[in-house]
């Protein structure tokens, strides 16, 4: 135990956040409430870190679940305890925003397998008193959704007015609609797909190999051995970050401009601004994220294939669904291109589901869903307004 305590003292913030998240609420599930995982094992006991915004109305009908992306967390709005930056979706969520916290009760929880307070590989394994590392069971998108459903049960919320998420968050939205259709009034899967493509799996594998090739990774036991695979995780982040942008956006932002110099140095310094930018992205990511968590969450995305659970027929995943869908994609997103969203829409049409679908013109790539995209805001606001009338939610401030 001493060994653990001493190594944790030097551990980055992400390790402390993994067990004792700041500025968050924590729901603890004991041995009587195990999380049954797709891997065939149960996780028990475990905990979920979450935040809420706004007020739950009297008939508990205005709850909105936000599902975060691969490297996101529960800090949708408000200062992040580690980075001290503002919440990751403050463009979309907040008072008067399209997901209006004056009207809706917004919940966001850290996914299972994450490192911001929900049980994951950086958390302490209660059986050993040491960080789980690779002993943590492999999790899936469906496991994340099961855990969120347990959180809602814990909060006494039967039915969600909306489930909203982009990228890996969008996968959770689709999984929610498939697993618990009667609990989801509206679903907004943004910039996502019903399965991870071979190309996406390939990119993830490069990231994982970068982490595992770092000698500091120590077979995933770095928390115990007082090391941290910073370089590997930074390289993984740098590679992934390119896939979140677009050629046009990179060119607009950086072109071939030099970083703080007039001429090339004829060395391997970060001569170009784009190199310097990527290095910064990699280094700052390491400060807030756990390398093993990155392995687990990318794996969960790779395993996601909603149609596979229905004999390859995606439409069967949504047959007879009562949920109203709003699918959104971006023209320059090549990680989750519009064709993937269109496949979702085709399946929903084939199930005669109530679906809206909009493609938004943006040159900002996959990351556009997190950025200032007024057309997306108008669509989300209009869609939720229409749905709130159908649900009988009062347009006046509730609570």
């Amino acid at each position, binding site marked *: 135990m001493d060994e653990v305590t001493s190594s944790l003292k030097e551990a980055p913030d992400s390790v402390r956040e993994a067990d004792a998240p700041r500025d968050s609420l924590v729901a603890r599930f004991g041995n009587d409430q195990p999380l049954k995982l797709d891997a065939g094992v149960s996780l028990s006991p475990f905990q979920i870190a979450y935040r809420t915004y706004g007020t739950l109305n009297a008939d508990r009908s205005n709850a909105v679940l936000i599902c975060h992306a691969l490297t996101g967390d529960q800090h949708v709005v408000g200062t992040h305890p580690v980075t001290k930056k503002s919440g990751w979706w403050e463009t979309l969520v907040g008072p008067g925003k399209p997901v209006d916290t004056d009207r809706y009760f917004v919940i966001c929880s850290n996914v299972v397998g994450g490192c911001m307070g929900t049980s994951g590989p950086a958390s302490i394994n209660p059986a050993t008193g040491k960080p789980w590392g690779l002993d943590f069971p492999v999790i899936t998108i469906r496991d994340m959704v099961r855990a969120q459903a347990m959180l809602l049960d814990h909060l006494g919320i039967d039915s969600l007015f909306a489930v909203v998420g982009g990228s890996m968050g969008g996968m959770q939205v689709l999984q929610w609609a498939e697993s618990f259709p009667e609990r989801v009034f509206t679903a907004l899967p943004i910039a996502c797909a019903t399965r991870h493509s071979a190309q996406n799996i390939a990119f993830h594998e490069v990231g994982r190999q970068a982490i595992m090739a770092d000698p500091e990774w120590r077979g995933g036991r770095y928390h115990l051995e007082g090391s941290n695979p910073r370089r590997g995780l930074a390289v993984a982040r740098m590679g992934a970050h390119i896939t979140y942008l677009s050629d046009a956006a990179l060119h607009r932002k950086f072109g071939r401009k030099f970083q703080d110099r007039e001429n090339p140095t004829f060395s391997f310094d970060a001569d170009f601004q784009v190199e310097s930018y990527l290095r910064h992205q990699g280094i700052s990511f390491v400060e807030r994220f756990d390398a093993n968590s990155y392995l687990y969450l990318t794996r969960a995305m790779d395993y996601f294939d909603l149609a596979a659970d229905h004999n390859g027929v995606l439409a069967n995943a949504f047959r007879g669904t009562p949920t109203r869908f*709003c*699918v959104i994609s971006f023209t320059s997103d090549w990680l989750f291109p519009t064709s993937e969203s269109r496949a979702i829409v085709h399946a929903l*049409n084939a199930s*005669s589901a109530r679906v*809206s*679908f*909009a493609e938004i013109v943006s040159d900002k790539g996959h990351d556009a869903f997190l950025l200032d995209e007024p057309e997306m805001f108008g*669509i989300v606001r209009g869609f939720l307004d*229409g749905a709130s*009338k159908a649900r009988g939610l009062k347009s006046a401030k509730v609570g």
Partner: protein
Amino acid sequence: MLSRSDPRLSANIVRTAGGARVDLVMVADMVERGAKVLDVGCGDGELLRLLSERRDVDGRGIELSREGVNECVAKGLAVVQGDADTDLGDYPDDAFDYVILSQTLQATRQPRVVLEHMLRIGRHAIVSFPNFGHWSVRLQLTFAGHMPRTEILPYSWYDTPNIHHCTIKDFVQLCTAIGVKMEKSVALNAWGSPLRLNAPWWFWNLFGQQAVFLLSRKS
């Protein structure tokens, strides 16, 4: 394909005192209250909104133009981006009570296939289209010798999205050919008034500027 949000089209279409387009009101009047409706080529969602207000329908839309779709979704309408020629095949049989194609038939690549899909997906189909047999069209071609341009067909031959013009007579023949039952039909003159119901087909074909048909499958 023509979009109803296209100002070149809608600016010249007659409106009621309340501001609604006369042809859309005609369409709306053919729909039973509370029905499930698919509007193919729904433009900026004017008909869907009219149907929702007047007939309390569960409405969905397909629209080709991205601007039209995004405007509809922001209004809270269930609309997807899609093409009548390619995307109707995705919908299952009997998914809707009515499938509506308003002022769009002449812009499809395969009008017959589109019409057959409409009557597969819906129990009823409602089709409205500009009548190419109207006297002003005939006069322009016969005496002026150029491709007709009218209030509701304002395009030049080289930039028109309308690639399959038909007359009322042509449309009736298509319905007969594919074994469709014509339940109701209305022809509107240039002032947006319906022509006499007991008028013969040749009269409609000459004086109807546009026509609206309610169709169903022959059982």
